[in-house]
């Protein structure tokens, strides 16, 4: 079972995922044609509608920031041969840790306060992924499954915290009390949530690209990912490379969660991750597990998800378009990758 699960993933080298992306767009168009009574109008909202005002544009840009951070987390784990399917729970954990920190330390001043909130988010996400890393390093528990299960379970626990003990009883929504004004990242494109955090991917992506390709540790990490037996025989410390990249992956997801809290929702809303973890996987796969591909991949994905949101708001289709596109993407994305690989082998 174990070999089957990971064998394909470790070998992936994608030159281009363009056919899959086109197929997904085609699937979206088919769904719209089938479920909408005014397909042309819906299609308009779906594709160019994103650029029609600063709210939609800013929301998309903000999504690109968040997705490139979670996508980076997935790419990092991939390169070490780990598979992080717990992104969703790690993002959620990051957000709830930041909520708790804001409650515990309300008198912190603004900018250091936000930094502490982000750090607590990073720590929360990292801790969750660290558990899976340890389970893998010590007992060979498949990280693919353990990250997913842990994340799903913890997600329910956080749901409970938000709807139960931490709930803001004055609000009708399932949400914690709003974050104090000083802990919020101000918008750069009012009224959208687009904020200063856009600098983070611009900093993190080159940094990790450099680390992976131009440092000894980065090289060893990639060797571990490509062939664990070769790495073991070369005397690399496998336990470190099975644990740390996964933990760093969780840390990046936790950071994204804290950013969602401080920059977008300003409160711990139930389900605030809105697929950031899953979509990060899709983004990483579209990017071909390479850091430089992350920004364009995030742009593609953010455009699609924002487009489907706008289409739902302005036309007659049901609320599930985004999920359908996402499902189709998952069905196709790992496969296309392998087909290209097998074509190369021949």
């Amino acid at each position: 079972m174990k070999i089957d699960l990971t064998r394909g993933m470790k070998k992936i080298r994608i030159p281009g995922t363009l056919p899959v992306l086109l197929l997904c767009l085609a699937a979206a168009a088919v769904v719209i044609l089938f479920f909408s009574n005014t397909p042309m109008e819906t299609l308009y909202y779906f594709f160019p509608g994103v650029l029609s005002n600063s709210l939609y544009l800013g929301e998309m840009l903000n999504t690109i920031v968040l997705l490139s951070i979670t996508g980076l987390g997935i790419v990092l784990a991939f390169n070490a041969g780990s598979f992080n399917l717990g992104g969703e729970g790690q993002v959620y954990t990051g957000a709830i840790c930041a909520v708790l920190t804001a409650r515990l330390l309300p008198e912190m001043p603004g900018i250091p306060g936000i930094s502490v909130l982000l750090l607590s988010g990073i720590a929360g996400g990292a801790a969750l992924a660290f558990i899976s890393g340890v389970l893998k390093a010590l007992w060979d528990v498949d990280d693919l499954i353990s990250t997913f299960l842990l994340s799903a379970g913890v997600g329910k626990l956080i749901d409970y915290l938000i709807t139960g003990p931490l709930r803001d009883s004055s609000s009708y929504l399932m949400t914690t009390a709003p974050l104090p004004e000083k802990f919020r990242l101000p918008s750069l494109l009012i009224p959208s949530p687009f904020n200063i955090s856009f600098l983070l991917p611009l900093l993190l992506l080159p940094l990790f690209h450099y680390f992976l390709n131009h440092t000894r540790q980065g090289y060893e990490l990639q060797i571990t990912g490509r062939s664990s037996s070769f790495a073991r025989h070369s005397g690399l410390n496998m336990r470190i490379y099975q644990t740390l990249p996964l933990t760093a992956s969780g840390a990046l997801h936790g950071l994204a969660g804290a950013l969602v809290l401080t920059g977008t929702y300003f409160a711990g809303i139930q389900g605030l991750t809105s697929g950031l973890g899953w979509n990060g996987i899709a983004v990483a796969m579209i990017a071909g597990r390479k850091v430089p591909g992350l920004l364009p991949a995030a742009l593609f994905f953010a455009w699609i998800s924002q487009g489907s949101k706008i289409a739902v708001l302005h036309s007659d289709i049901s609320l599930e378009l985004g999920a359908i596109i996402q499902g189709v993407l998952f069905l196709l994305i790992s496969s296309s990758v392998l087909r290209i690989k097998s074509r190369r082998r021949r």
Partner: protein
Amino acid sequence: MILVILASATPLILAALGGLLTERAGVLNIALEGMILGSAFAAVLIAGLSGSIFLGTLGALFAGMLISMLFNLGTFTLKGNPFITGLGINVLVPALTVSISQRIYGNQGIIRPENISSVFKIAGMDMFTITALAAAVIMLIVFFRTRQGLIIRSCGEQEDLLISRGINPVKVKKQMVLLSGAFSGLAGGALSLNLGVYVPGMSAGKGWIALVAIYLGYRRIPGVVLACILFSMAEWGANRAQGFLGIPPTLILSFPYFLTLAALWLFSIRKSRSNTGL
């Protein structure tokens, strides 16, 4: 009380038996959840449109197989990662059911057709329970007394052996996924037809619990059935005990995932011990 527990264990037993088939053939089928939900929807939809429980059950069976064909397409035909394909199905199916129900009934919520009759029963057991128990017995015989059973078991354990005998393991795996789709289809039918209503998300982690049951039952048929019954008893007990234990129901939702992880962890510890012992 025994019958109540058995009835509530039925969808679980059916799904777990289906999952066991793929598990023994070497495919981790995490799409059980999506298969159950999709066929629960199809069952009520078709039973409501046709007015026949029988056609509804048949619809559930086919819906489950249809979804498993999607799984086969992504996993084997396109050679994708089974876990990602399974996730895709688990994301896609709930979204599709909502969209279809929106299109047909104009609402995204509960479907409660007026004309659904009650499920056929013998001696207090409904037809799904009888099917589940019969399936377990038949599977026991097939697994250990027939060539097909041997092929299925060796598919998961020694693929090379099959190849050397001229049997294509991928074909066996595909068939088992299809069968697990049929089983999950019946599980979905048992879930929704017994109530005569479809509620979005009504599978509520049953696919995942079925996976736990497979590992808790040490991948053996009687063990798996027993584990399913145990889960239903625990659930029944927890529902009764909620009042005085004070465990909030939202918290209980996290249990299946942690239990699965714990079961897998124990499984891995055992495996790594026996490996070093050799």
